């Protein structure tokens, strides 16, 4: 048996089963954040818009991943897998933008 599958996942124990209340709370927060996002945008945040919007998106995504996608169950390999996608996205963005932000761009 492999050494990293101790994440309990067989016949569901009570521990695995989500409490409906926690699901609903997460739902309310996510919806609330979306509403906040829309509200903030309508006021016109100017230059701050992009970072604020993305920050809200990230918080929402973390909530969904953690509670609804059960990352909180702490299966190390799964968590690492999830994080690796972010890491490589990060690489893609940073290195691509290293070109786009520093390239002198002569417009058409």
């Amino acid at each position, binding site marked *: 048996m492999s050494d990293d599958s101790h994440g309990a996942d067989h016949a569901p124990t009570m521990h695995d089963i989500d409490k409906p209340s926690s699901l609903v709370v997460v739902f309310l927060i996510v919806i609330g954040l979306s509403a906040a996002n829309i509200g903030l945008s309508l006021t016109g945040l100017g230059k701050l818009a992009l970072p604020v919007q993305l920050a809200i998106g990230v918080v929402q995504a973390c909530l969904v991943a953690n509670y609804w996608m059960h990352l909180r169950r702490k299966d190390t390999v799964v968590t690492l897998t999830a994080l*690796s996608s972010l890491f490589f996205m990060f690489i893609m963005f940073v*290195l*691509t933008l*290293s*070109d786009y932000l*520093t390239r*002198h761009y002569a417009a058409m």
Partner: protein
Amino acid sequence: MSVISAEPKALGPVPPEPETPAINYLNNNYGIWSWLLTTDHKRIGILYLLSLTVFFTVGGLAAGMVRLNLLSPSGAILTEDQYNRMFTAHGVMMLFFFLIPSIPAVFGNFFIPIMIGAKDLAFPKLNLASWYVFMLGAGFAIWAVLAGGIDTGWTLYPPYSSRYSHTNVVPGAMGAFISGFSSIMTGLNIMVTIHKMRCPGMTWGRMPLFCWALYATSFIQLLGTPVVAITLVLLMVERTAGIGIFDPSIGGDPILFQHLFWFYSHPAVYIMIIPGMGVVSEVLTCFSRKNIFGYKAVAWSSVGIGVVGFLVWSHHMFVAGISYYSALLFSLLTMFVAVPSAIKIFNWTATLYRGSITFQAPMLFTLAFLVLFTVGGVTGLFLAVLGTDIHLHDTYFVVAHFHFVMVGGMVLAYMAGVHYWWPKMTGRMYSDFWSKASAVVIFVGFFLTFVPQFVVGYHGMPRRYPNYPAEFQIYNILSTAGASILGLGYFMPSVYLTLSLFFGPKATANPWSATGLEWSIPSPPTQFNFDHVPVVVCGPYEYSIGVDQLGRTLPEPPEDGASLVKKETDVVG
């Protein structure tokens, strides 16, 4: 020298040869559907082996046409249009339909579960699906080639590919797109299998290096392939809808395509070499009867190449109009990715030290790999250095570089793998003499083909030229001559390996006296690989002690040369 060594322990008796079961994975059922609907990872490996052989031959024939045409400065046999289609077909076939799936899909499918003591891959149906998806992709590509061809080069740069080419770009890109999913499926399967299905005692530190290598490869397949998939989608949209995001006429940046393309395609070149490195680690230790020198270093350098390989893609774009600062950054990062490969080469060399080396065909191919990959790798440095790439970019120097690493490296490692595992896969032994001869012929032919290309490349001969200034001719003739020898070299295995299926002596379970789990089961294996779940007690390369991973004493290793054949026939008789 702080070399860790120990006196060999006293050994138990050699375990009896496992009885060759009457029923194995090859004959447990018959008929075309038993193959086409199989979920047995071994049969799927064989399906891949057969289809890849076909695509390699197609790609090789296209290479032959390319080389023939270059005999004369004005183009010997093809028109410009035909030539452009020919090298594109060659590149696409060889990369997407041969080299990327080669070792992972054939030997990975076949041996990863066995090497880690599992009954099958984690998702057998997905595995079968991956083959179908692969064949569907290949179908598209072949349709594209037959119905008039594609003339964009395998790199498919827009706006040429999106607006100006009059050829079948969309079916071709579709083929690559679809086969990408097959690659993802295989990678995912292998990764999950390695994570979840190792047998008792098979810790990460005891896995054969081949498994480490394929783990790193799968990782790249998983993370890189989706990016090229979306890129190809964007390209196809742009071409069919006539509007898209790379189009300079609406402010789009064609270089963005190159970024996204190489974000995958540079790591992809490591998909094309790391599995080969895995095979080399297996074969080299076995035929020199030594532990690998620095297991951890070799294992982690595979992962290192896999990760750092994602940081260097723009070294294909140093003169493409990217930002100056970006170029500096990418060149620097490329220097780092070359280091793990260097570590491997040195560690392999050190493995040979004080070995007990024999030179059967797998070993000859592996030694050839060491030489050719080193040459290919160091010429990569010329290209990674900004100042030299300005001149060498898109010349035959690049062509020679990547054939050295891909053909001299990966294809030879693939050949090594074929020869190493052939007895296990088929239960038959091939001709010792002819296999060695073919290794030598391939090695010689290879050098003759691609060394002259370094020379013309340095002198500035551009790639993808059906005709060229006359002063380059003599080197092109040499190269074509070499390619003919190379073709012969590849032809030989197709003959003696086929013959061995019918006339070859029966192989024992462990003809090379190797340590891996795959050698503890009969040749060919039974359907579920293991009768009982194996329990691994030690690392993979305990040749000097002479025990396999189950802790059993190894049989006497085969002598080099004719005696091998004799011994095999003895067993049969």
